[in-house]
């Protein structure tokens, strides 16, 4: 290697251009200039992200540690707001129902969505019409669908209670009876969510090579075995992703509960997100309300992390 060549490599290693016009024009400056340009171009977006997401988050942490209102911060109280929330029996009731609501919402909508996705794989006439119709509960604004459900079940003169009465079930109070209200909001959530699961499952099923099924049949597998040992493992990754998303949707689902029951009767259908809202905007207790929201977020993150780990383990070979 010649000295010139060695210098060239040295320059190259240090980022100095071989054929540069001068010793000070070189790559670091060029790279630095480019990096600066990129950084400046990205800066407005970063600034906006920090302002839009970072600032409220930090301010919420501060609020959770104070006893003030939305306008005035109040006095620093440490973790007292968290303690207050945890000592409230309504919090634990809401946490339990959030769990029930989430588990029902995720697995109920997944089971129906997957079933319909499997059905829609078959060659049926007007399949696209069916698919569009099945998407309606997901597409229609939740305010509209909850109003429609309210009309269907709220009063003894509503269509569904009338039908129940005609069937000899007596006066069924779908929203006034605590247990039935819980069932009703869970069923509503499944109804609203299954189209999303159907889309996710449908996309995953479409990606499976049909030769796999033929091979399984040649090996003598029956329909049940094909479903559990071929189809489910092959769509596992997509399934876990849809579970994660639906878990987050369910835990954060405010309008479904609030519009249908408001968390009642007597807290029967209260979830953590509704409780957080009520605590801040009905009881005007900002600190405890934000503390509840933080604890809820923590649980959602933990569940999501656990499900993400399952994705890595998913057998997609």
């Amino acid at each position: 290697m010649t000295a010139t060549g060695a210098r060239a490599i040295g320059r190259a290693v240090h980022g100095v251009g071989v054929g540069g016009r001068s010793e000070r024009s070189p790559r670091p400056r060029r790279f630095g200039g480019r990096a600066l340009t990129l950084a400046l171009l990205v800066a407005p977006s970063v600034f906006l992200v920090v302002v839009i997401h970072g600032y409220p988050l930090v301010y919420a942490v501060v609020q959770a540690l104070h006893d003030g209102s939305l306008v005035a911060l109040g006095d620093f109280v440490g973790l007292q707001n968290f303690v207050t929330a945890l000592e409230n029996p309504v919090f634990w009731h809401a946490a339990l129902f959030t769990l029930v609501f989430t588990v029902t919402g995720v697995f109920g909508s997944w089971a129906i969505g997957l079933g319909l996705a499997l059905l829609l794989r078959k060659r049926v006439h007007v399949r696209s019409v069916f698919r569009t119709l099945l998407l309606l509960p997901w597409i229609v604004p939740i305010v509209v669908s909850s109003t429609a459900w309210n009309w269907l079940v709220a009063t003894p003169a509503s269509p569904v209670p009338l039908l129940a009465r005609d069937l000899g079930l007596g006066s069924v109070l779908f929203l006034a009876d605590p247990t039935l209200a819980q069932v009703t909001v869970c069923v509503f959530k499944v109804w609203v969510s299954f189209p999303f699961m159907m889309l996710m499952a449908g996309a995953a099923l479409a990606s499976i090579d049909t030769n796999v099924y033929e091979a399984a049949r040649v090996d003598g597998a029956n329909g049940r075995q094909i479903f559990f040992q071929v189809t489910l493992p092959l769509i596992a990754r997509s399934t876990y992703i849809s579970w994660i998303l639906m878990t987050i949707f369910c835990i954060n689902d405010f309008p479904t509960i609030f519009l249908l029951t408001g968390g009642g009767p007597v807290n029967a259908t209260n979830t953590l997100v509704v409780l957080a809202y009520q605590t801040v905007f009905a009881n005007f207790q900002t600190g405890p309300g934000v503390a509840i929201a933080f604890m809820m977020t923590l649980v959602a993150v933990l569940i999501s992390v656990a499900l993400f780990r399952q994705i890595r383990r998913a057998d997609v070979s």
Partner: protein
Amino acid sequence: MNTADTSSRITLPRRSFLAFAGASTLVPILAACASDGEGPQASSGKLPTGVLKYWDSILGTGEYNTLSKTLIEGWKDGGLTAEYQIIPAANLFQTFQASIAAGKGPAVSGGYAFQAFQFANEGAIAYADHLIETMKKNGMYDDYVAGVTEPFKTSKGYVAVPWGMDIRPMWYRKSLLDKAGVDVPTDWDSFLAAGKALAKIGAYGWATAAGTGASYGGHALVSLMINNGGGLFDEHGKPDCLYARNVEAMDFVREMVGAGMVDPASVSYSTDNLYDQWKNGQAAMGIVNATLTSEAGDTEDDLAVMSPLAGPHGDKGTLEYLKNFMMYTDTPSQQGSEDFMIWWLKQFQGTDGFFAKGVTGSLPVNKSVIALPQVQADKNVAKVLKEWGPVGKGYAARGTTLFAGLASVDAGTAINQFTQTMLQGKTDSKSALKTLQSGIESVLS
């Protein structure tokens, strides 16, 4: 098309581009940091100039808001003009809170019942004592019916000025009472007897709603407590839910539930569900607002207001809310705010005012307005004003002075859960009131 040529013509040097991008970013930021108008400082020594922001919630008919906008945007006081903004009722509090916290709130506003007390606690309210003095001089103060200004007086001064009233009278459907063969009740005993007779024909004698967003259920229970000489608070404003008269009133509610007077589904009813019950003839009696006929679409004069019922000890009463306007410290001119308030309050009065036009959805609190033929033309409204107005009491009853904490009681979860518990009829009155007491103490602490 020669795209290559075009692109070569608009080549921008990096430095120039960065300078342009930087300027583009800085301009709006600097603009946002700059003053949004000429404030009192800008016009020191001169007449105040600027824009006085007035925020209103949606009241009564849509016509009210249309008229208000036209009137307010035409207002001028020296260098001051006014700007009109409607704040939807659904997120009224959040909007006010966030805007005031950001220093972008109104100079004058309407709002919900206890809003002025809440923002006074935050230091955002301009006290109305000077305005009240002006109103005493120009005769406007003396035009108020008795007792409507004092609830707004705090130790620091008047937080707001009343313009209207919302009250909870008892309504009945004549045809259902006739069908059940009962007279219009006059006291609790006859009310209970009528309710039992109505239950036999499938009508509800205590129609109410305690579901999502419905406050009538809670209001009706508090009204009954007040009717019996009770209330959620003692004379000093401390929670006193277990007051004997309250227990007695809630025992009466349990009796009504047991007698089948209450629709078991009402614990989950929205306000619209309740109005539907009034429309379809399921509701025979109940405590609602003073404008039920329009809400229930009654065109046959079948709905009527009862006279206040006498409780077991002879007391009469119900819950009332005073609607009010308030001024804020964030104003281009405090004198301008007061001038605006005087002018704005006058828009509700007179033969051409909002009340005469029937667009407010509220009841007047001025003697001259109550006497207007347009107001008296509605015999239900006239009856409410004549018979229920004088016995109406605020949410702080048995106390008389309102305070900020009432907002978290009136709209809070404790009263809602209490109402649902009572309407389910499974819990004894004392236990339910005890839970309510601790719930109220918790939000007031």
